[in-house]
């Protein structure tokens, strides 16, 4: 009887220790993640890309997070973002930049496997494929899933609009319809931002030429203020 009770206490103690360990590991992973995120958010709020040294620190912190909690898709996705930022600091088209983009894409693919319902991950995949000049079935599939899962997410709407503005004339028609739909939904809140983003990409004439026939309400974009 006493042995049985001692066994139960021991088991409970072991379970408690395991729970404390797991919580501690997750807490530590979160702490590393928070450190990385602070660097990225700080740079974002300052309107600049993090410097190479900051990216190295962020990447190291994220790797430590992943070592403690390898199945957290957020850490995987964030590491992909850091690699993408590295790529953006290199000359466009450079072999090293392409390699960094490929590494980022691999991270995003892993994140998509872990969390297939995340519109952010799919948007990231579509944006990376576009930068790699690989508008293939994976690109169109990612775009479609981003729209399906993040239809009403403002950041996703803006990202889809941005992808459309970046390479409008080379997109297949279903992607154009999807982009115009995102613009239409984002318009009531984000019209100023969308106009500014469109202007940053230059000539809107090709978009406007097709907006009228594809999705009439999205052609609001083309009305001069």
């Amino acid at each position, binding site marked *: 009887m006493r042995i049985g009770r001692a066994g139960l206490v021991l088991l409970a103690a072991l379970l408690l220790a395991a729970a404390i360990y797991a919580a501690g590991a997750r807490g530590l992973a979160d702490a590393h993640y928070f450190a990385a*995120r602070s660097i*990225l*958010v700080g*740079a*974002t*709020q300052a*309107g*600049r890309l*993090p410097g190479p040294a900051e990216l190295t620190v962020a990447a190291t912190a994220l790797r430590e997070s992943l070592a403690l909690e390898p199945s957290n898709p*957020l850490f995987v*996705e*964030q590491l*992909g*973002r850091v690699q*993408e*930022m590295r790529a*953006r600091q290199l000359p*466009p*088209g450079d072999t090293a930049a392409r390699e960094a983009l490929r590494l980022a894409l691999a991270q*995003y693919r892993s994140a998509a496997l872990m969390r297939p319902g*995340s519109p*952010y*991950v799919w*948007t*990231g995949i579509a*944006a*990376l494929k*576009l*930068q*790699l*000049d690989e*508008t*293939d*079935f*994976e690109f*169109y*599939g990612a775009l*479609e899933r981003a729209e399906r899962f993040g239809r009403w997410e403002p*950041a*996703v709407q*803006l*990202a889809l609009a*941005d*992808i459309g*503005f*970046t*390479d409008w*004339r*080379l*997109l*297949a*028609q*279903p*992607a154009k*319809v999807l982009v115009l739909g995102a613009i239409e939904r984002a318009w009531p809140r984000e019209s100023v*931002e969308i106009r*500014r*983003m469109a202007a*940053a*990409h230059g000539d809107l004439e090709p978009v406007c030429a097709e907006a009228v026939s594809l999705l009439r309400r999205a052609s609001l974009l083309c009305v001069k203020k």
Partner: protein
Amino acid sequence: MIHFIGSLNPIEIEMTSSIRLVLLLLGLALGANALAQKSTPVATATAGAVIAEKRGSVRIQVGAEPPQYHQMGKPLLPGTTVDTGPNSSAVIVYPDGTICVMGEQSKFRIVRYHYDPNDLSKSEEWLNLISGSLRIMMGEIAQFNPDAVRVQVGVVTVGVDASILPGTDASAVAQSGAVAVTVQDGRVVAYLPSGQPQQLSAGQGMYLSEDGVLRSDTTAHLLQLLGQFAQGQDMQQQLADLTGYNQKIVQTIITMAAVTSALKGDSTLDEATAQKTAAAEILKQLESLPPPGTINQPPPPSAPAVGVAGTPATGGGGGGLPCAASCN
């Protein structure tokens, strides 16, 4: 034309396909044999293509430069977009023997192209039919390094199945969000945006509707299906128009066999025959292309502006708030 295609039964289609296959092999043999004379060590890597023949209005656009009407004799570098107008067409040839026939009102882009006759594992061919119609006869790269070949048709990616030889001959139409692919010879794998692969052998075809519904069947049945609705009739017509290029394709295959042979240094184009004159003209244009390493290809699309890193960070639990284009 619709009646012409509609009246072809599967046996007739198969016979046409077999005749074309025999002609293809004959062409390749004739081209190679007739030209196997002197040897000049020309074999160099080439990155680019040539419009061998065109009809009507054909415009080209390189990167973000304004589009301009194509002038014969000007080769096409990777990154070039080719547009055909109404009642227009273009036959684009590549040094590895790939032949693309663009139908009217089509937009096509050479995304990447690199042919190294000395090392086909380093060769790559990535083409994109953005809209309109295209018939493609795959060349040497597809035969020896099929993984390096991708043809994007609207939202569908078409790859080559290496287990079937000789060269693959396929037609594709991308129109108003729908895609149709038919295979005349060889075998292809079409990847849908869902990631689902669709194997298509000679005499088979597929149709992906605008709302993502897939139909695959024999070419004859597929063409019948397309004839049952308005948009499909247009696509059926475009596929029918592409079959009208059979004779032109056979001639081009023979010409390109001569070009490829000369590029490899296996023969020269000394004799003054019409075929060789055409081949010499193509060869001259291909040789005028700068070596692949020195080509200033238009830069890939710039990173989208949303968020500093281009991709929006996961919200909520996430990676910081996207600050949109204001960050850049």
